[in-house]
């Protein structure tokens, strides 16, 4: 069976330092991997490798069996939410999302834009300039931007950061809907309870290595936080 998202021996070095070292994982449709790890563990670098934004030093990432690097159409299936909003402050909320829809070749740009803005509950701010919005609202627009093309694979780097209760609820609803539609996700978070609540798999990353990858059903969520702290030692 073809995996939706697959990493094989993914390695990335910066200078002499290995940020990500020999990471292998595979996820099917409707599976969600929660990735935990201390700062500097290599989580963001791994997401950027899986998104095709970084060239691996060794190994490869595949989406639906197609290598991500060098295959532009494979990128059409990926959505990426990062620490940075990837928005243009001088454009309005709607213009930013329309731009993303056009770049992904969405057939009904207008409907897709309105839908994404409505899901993230920022439709009424559609004509506001992004630079005039609070950080939390910008994060919601950034999520709408990443979801406008309805990606099959969603990579989320601490997506709840900066969101208020309404924004967090909107994101949780959206993630649940995407999972229900067969979407595959990798969620990087420092909040273990939040990660385990949505994940089908959990993994710990430390020193660029994937130390522990297991099914959510096989682990004890009550003791997981303690086990995690023990695993990463003082870095947690």
């Amino acid at each position, binding site marked *: 069976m073809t995996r939706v998202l697959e990493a094989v021996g993914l390695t990335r070095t910066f200078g002499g330092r290995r940020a990500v070292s020999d990471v292998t994982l595979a996820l099917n449709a409707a599976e969600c991997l929660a990735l935990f790890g201390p700062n500097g563990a290599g989580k963001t670098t791994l997401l950027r490798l899986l*998104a*095709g*934004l*970084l*060239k691996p030093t060794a190994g490869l990432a595949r989406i639906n069996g197609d290598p991500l690097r060098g295959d*532009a*159409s*494979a*990128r*059409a299936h*990926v959505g*990426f939410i*990062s620490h*940075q*909003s*990837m*928005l*243009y*402050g*001088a*454009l309005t909320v709607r*213009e930013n999302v329309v*731009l*993303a829809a*056009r*770049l*992904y*070749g969405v*057939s009904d740009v207008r409907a897709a834009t309105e839908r994404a803005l409505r899901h993230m509950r920022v439709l009424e701010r559609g004509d506001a*300039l992004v630079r005039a919005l609070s950080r939390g609202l910008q994060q919601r627009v950034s999520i709408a*931007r990443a979801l406008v093309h309805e990606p099959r694979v969603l990579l989320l780097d601490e997506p709840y950061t900066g969101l208020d209760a309404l924004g967090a609820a909107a994101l949780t609803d959206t993630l649940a809907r995407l999972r229900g539609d067969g979407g595959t996700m990798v969620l990087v978070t420092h909040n273990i309870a939040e990660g385990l609540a949505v994940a089908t798999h959990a993994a710990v990353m430390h020193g660029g290595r994937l130390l522990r990858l297991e099914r959510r059903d096989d682990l004890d969520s009550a003791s997981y936080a303690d086990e995690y702290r023990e695993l990463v030692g003082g870095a947690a």
Partner: protein
Amino acid sequence: MRPTLLSSTWVIARKDLAIEFRTRTAFLAVLVFAVLGVAVFYFAWDATAVAALDLAPGVLWVIFTFSGLLSLQRSFGVEQAERAMDGLLLSPIDREAIFLGKALANLLFVAGIQLVTIPAVALLYNLSLGRPLLILFGVALLAAVGLVAIGTLFSAMASNTRLAELLLPMLSLPFFVPVVYGAAQATSTLLAGRPSQEAWPFLKLLIAFDLVFLVACTLAFPYTLEE
């Protein structure tokens, strides 16, 4: 469906122009720089020592070169904040479309500057406002294609460095030499009222330069994006 090279080029160019239209800061800054440059040359000019026709082409191309560099500086600057460039790289469009879209927006930006600067130079240096001036607009646009192709590529390369403001002119200026030479020679031939056939070799140089560097820079651009 994946957008075509042409449609994604236009999407990128339109985005850059919309941002510039919304902020207007870069265009106004470059325009003021160009007009002030023309004025400074005018006041430093000794009309008894150098004829207007001998000086004007040099003034025009010095101003175009440096105002072009200024305008190209901002091209990838807008992608730095909030890592907007990642948003473009994540999408399924060809990397070449990012270059071509940015180059197209830069070309329109530089053409807008030329549209104001050429009449200003013509006015101050008493140049004839007839047919040669119209041809001059064509020469300027032809030269702008080459300048913009090189400048956009080096702007992409320099934008990820701490010395972007210094690197862009250092990298670009040596490559600007053939285009500025060809354009200045064609300009002086046209402004002197000599037969336009005399300008043809320089126009051929500009066309060849445009074709070679537009293709070379488009193909080289994806390699500037590798982290």
